[in-house]
């Protein structure tokens, strides 16, 4: 298989390649959870409760004798879906607001002040308050995280739009009578792909962490849905007897979040070599 040149260049940094492979493994294990493990994530076996990692249960079992690997694999579906939806939603809405604020001078101040106000709340506190107000459900967690991360995207996109707006090709497009919508869509947006992609991977990682924290606090998805966060929350009182029941779901979160951040870094280096020096 031939990789496009840009991907080849990105993967020349071995750590970025390792991150991409790890992420791919996590996604595939979650997607094909029923193939990876023969156990049902909700099957309890009290006689096998809190068993150590063994040949029968590679990652051990939890306090109800449920297979941890099965729960992590199936739980990944929920954790990854929530984070992916949150990242997509905030990127789409944040880009829209950022573009408008950066391009139309009159709308810049009002949008930017609302962004400032929303960013005055610590992420997790705002997310908790939003879920409390909306009620705990998977969709509401996604909605809350979209609201939390949208201002962050809007701020980055606005800053980049301000730069691109002044470039010669935009002026040229305007001079030959290209419509504003077309200038934004065809001329400015493609030039913002680098910061947007970097933000997307970082927000995906933050959303994984935030969803886990919300579920841990008991204000996220309902506890019967096995996400990585609810797994740690449900088992924490047994941690002194069997550390692995909190250890492994946490490791799944770390591997996923770290891989996403490394990938984001790789994309940034590839698309914007100037940043490589400073960050």
């Amino acid at each position: 298989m031939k990789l496009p040149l840009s991907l080849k260049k990105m993967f020349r940094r071995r750590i970025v390649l390792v991150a991409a492979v790890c992420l791919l493994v996590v996604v595939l294990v979650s997607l094909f959870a029923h193939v990876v493990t023969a156990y049902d994530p909700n099957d309890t076996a009290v006689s096998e409760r809190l068993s150590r990692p063994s040949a029968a249960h590679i990652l051990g079992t939890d306090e109800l004798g449920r297979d941890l690997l099965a729960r992590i694999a199936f739980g990944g579906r929920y954790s990854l879906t929530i984070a992916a939806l949150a990242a997509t939603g905030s990127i789409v809405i944040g880009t829209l607001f950022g573009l408008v604020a950066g391009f139309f001078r009159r709308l810049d101040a009002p949008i930017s002040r609302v962004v400032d106000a929303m960013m005055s709340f610590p992420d997790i506190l705002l997310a908790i308050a939003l879920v409390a107000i909306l009620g705990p459900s998977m969709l509401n967690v996604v909605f809350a995280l979209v609201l939390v991360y949208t201002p962050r995207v809007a701020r980055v996109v606005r800053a980049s739009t301000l730069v691109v707006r002044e470039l010669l090709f935009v002026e040229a497009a305007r001079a030959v009578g290209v419509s504003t919508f077309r200038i934004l869509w065809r001329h400015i947006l493609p030039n913002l792909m680098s910061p947007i992609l970097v933000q997307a991977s970082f927000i995906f990682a933050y959303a994984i962490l935030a969803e886990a924290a919300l579920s841990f606090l008991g204000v996220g998805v309902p506890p019967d849905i096995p996400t990585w966060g609810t797994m740690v929350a449900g088992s924490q009182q047994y941690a002194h007897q069997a550390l692995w029941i909190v250890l492994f779901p946490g490791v799944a979160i770390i591997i996923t979040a770290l891989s996403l951040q490394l990938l984001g870094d790789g994309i940034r280096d590839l698309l914007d070599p100037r940043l490589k020096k400073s960050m």
Partner: protein
Amino acid sequence: MTRYPMTRYLLSRLMGMLVVMSLVAVLVFILTRAASGDPIAVLLGDQATAEDISRVQKLYGLDKPLPVQFGIWVNQLLHGNLGDSIFLQRPVTQALWERAEPTTLLALMAVAIAAGIGVPCGVVSAVFRGRMLDQLFTGLAMLGASVPSFWFGLVLMQLFAVGLAWFPVSGYGDPGATLLERMYFLVLPATVLGVLNSALIIRFTRASMLDVLGEDYVRTARAKGLSESVVVLKHALRNALVPIVTVLGLTVALMIGGAVVTETVFGLPGVGNLVVSAVLRRDYPVIQGALLVVAAIYVVINFLTDLLYTVVDPRVKY
């Protein structure tokens, strides 16, 4: 006006701060009024009749149109009144004030740890840019930003409190405990917050140092024959510290609200813990008050660090 650039700058920043704070208030009002589930129904319980509900709604002014409700609420806010907690039956300001000490102490200890790790590692990273140490520290910084705080807290608790019994498992000591005893209870939670937040400080210090190390005066200092340690520590770090101080200030502000998770893990009676229990009991006045106060602290610290920036670095124009 141009004769007093500092005054003009101060006024414009102050105005900006007021605008943001007003927007924060509007957002908090909209959020809590959009809440699913009527807070009055929660307050009165299942037994309440429709009559009871309308009577209490009238009492709290909830029967009035939204703009009027907003006006009343802002008026109360300006008098320092955040309303009463539904569950605790006490003013929200009092509840927040009682919980302020553990959270503030935790945030300060955590920032000290974050700076203690982050600044030296960032400096070393910048000086040895591209080499093994740099890659190690930047890798660790990224790892720090990928570890969930509740998980790290639970692991540290199992190792150092349950296993080795070096530190208390949870809580904040007896009511009459001294400050030192209280700090002892905060060692593990502050380590969790500090270590994880040091990631940001490492990255920032590294970037800031790299900027400064490329400056002409650093080259001059080297050309004068000064030792590398004097160049790095005296000439470069001192100037690089300005933006780092800003980030440290903002980190304290973010930690005050962001310590929610760590406080819950270690059972600390702080603001975060208060918010989580308020959320579980749907105690909206507390959620509303906590959001407002935390955002206000962030906005004010942001303003103060901005001012500090201009005082410490005379090149910054007003």
